[in-house]
């Protein structure tokens, strides 16, 4: 029997639990695991935090993300205990005022947090950064991403059609969490370059995912690949283009990153090259009240986002040298990285 915590206890018939959870609005529409005290305690044992400790409040409801409540949502999502430190770190990022999560939750677009994990915690938590890292089949990736969604729902109040006003929704709202494939990347890990060389979680809010097929690049001859990536980033429908701001994410397969590296591109040089090519002739780009293109001076080229440094480059996926993925930016939400205790 666990000690008294912050969460209300409810008695329910085990066979009725799935229906009960659905009726109570606890779920994302899929079945959930019953958060019994014993299951919750198994997750709590993974962190050195008091169960009543408030990690933060999640908007717009302003509900308190206590360690216990985070664990309850993680159990619901199906998280194995060893993933719990990642979930707690993610909860802290959801609660960070800079993350502007209330707007992410409510926007009429389709924004959702994306989580990238670096460092030794990846192996311990069972996180996957290889083939299919953003797809189905990997328990830690799927359940951590789902735990984030359930926290947004149950703690932050992001109830669909009430607070969540996304016109179309987005499959990614079920959860986006993956590990960087540091072992096969030619470059230092994302979190390390952001000042956290150990285990760390990086979060930003995205509004779409676009697969980018590259024409089998060869070392030393990657102009086409950079142009194609730039085209995908500079599409006018992206909010980051319409505001000249935000932090789009470029996910490169390890094979693609390796060829770029052998062609003389590190992360920074690649970001600069992509930014240069992604600038567009501004004629025909008309500012509207809610669309303000950023230009290089008066009448100059339209920028795809603020600066090369704003592009988040991460390596994940299978070894193929011709695959990339672009996660476009919600804009009104930054990139934040925190170490995992």
């Amino acid at each position, binding site marked *: 029997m666990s000690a008294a915590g912050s969460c209300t206890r409810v008695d329910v018939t085990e066979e009725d639990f799935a229906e009960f959870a659905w009726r109570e609005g606890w779920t994302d529409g899929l079945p959930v695991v019953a958060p019994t005290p014993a299951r919750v305690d198994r997750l709590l044992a993974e962190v050195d935090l008091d169960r009543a400790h408030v990690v933060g409040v999640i908007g717009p409801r302003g509900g308190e993300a206590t360690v216990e409540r985070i664990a309850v949502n993680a159990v619901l999502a199906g998280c194995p205990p060893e993933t719990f430190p990642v979930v707690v770190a993610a909860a802290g990022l959801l609660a960070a005022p800079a993350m502007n999560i209330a707007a992410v939750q409510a926007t009429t677009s389709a924004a959702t947090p994306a989580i990238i994990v670096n460092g030794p915690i990846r192996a311990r938590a069972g996180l996957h950064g290889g083939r299919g890292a953003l797809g189905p089949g990997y328990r830690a990736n799927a359940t951590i991403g789902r735990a984030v969604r359930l926290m947004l729902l149950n703690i932050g109040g992001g109830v669909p059609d009430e607070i*969540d006003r996304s016109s179309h929704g987005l499959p990614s709202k079920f959860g986006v969490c993956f590990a960087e494939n540091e072992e096969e990347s030619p470059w230092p890990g994302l979190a390390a370059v952001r000042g956290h060389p150990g285990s760390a979680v990086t979060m930003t809010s995205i509004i779409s995912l676009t697969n980018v097929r590259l024409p089998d690049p060869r070392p030393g001859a990657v102009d086409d690949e950079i142009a194609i990536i730039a085209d995908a980033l500079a599409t006018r429908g992206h909010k980051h283009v319409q505001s000249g701001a935000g932090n789009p994410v470029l996910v490169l397969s390890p094979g693609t990153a390796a060829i770029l590296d052998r062609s003389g591109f590190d992360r920074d040089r690649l970001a600069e090259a992509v930014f240069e090519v992604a600038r567009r002739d501004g004629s025909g780009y008309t500012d509207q*009240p809610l669309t303000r293109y950023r230009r290089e001076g008066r009448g100059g080229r339209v920028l795809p986002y603020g600066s090369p440094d704003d592009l988040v480059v991460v390596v994940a996926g299978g070894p193929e040298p011709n695959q990339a993925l672009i996660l476009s930016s919600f804009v009104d939400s930054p990139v934040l990285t925190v170490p995992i205790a």
Partner: protein
Amino acid sequence: MGAITVLSPVAAAAAVGVGDVARLDGLTGRSVAIVGNGWRSWAALREPIRAALVDEHGVTGVELFDVPLGEPAPEEVLRDVAKADAAVVGLANCGSCAVATARNARWLADNGVAVLVAATQRYAGMVASLAGELPLVNLPADLEQFDDGRLATLAAELPRQIATHLGGRAR
């Protein structure tokens, strides 16, 4: 299968709207701030509203403020807005801007300003759920599609509604 005990994942909402909302006993001699966030329709309505509040309702000064669409206004901006006796805060016309508008309005109400929220019909309930019991002027859902003529018609009606909500009386 028997009974099991489970823990609820749901957090209670933070308390909002627990205090009284300031209400004026008239607009004559008062100052009013009108807060906008980039929507074309609301930007077009603010100027005729300003003129009517001064000409027809005795308001001594109306100042217009522009705030971000998708995030709460910086507190220094809200402090400037709060120098007015009353504020009309808009426009809640999308999910993220409804959240931001609710936050801005609640901050002003909690700091003693007589507040009126401007929201389109789809977002009025959302603002109410987030900001508590604040006066609200409910605008057409398709406001952003209004042409100049329809905006002018609405602009002729709105100042009286605003004055009534804020506690003022037409002279």
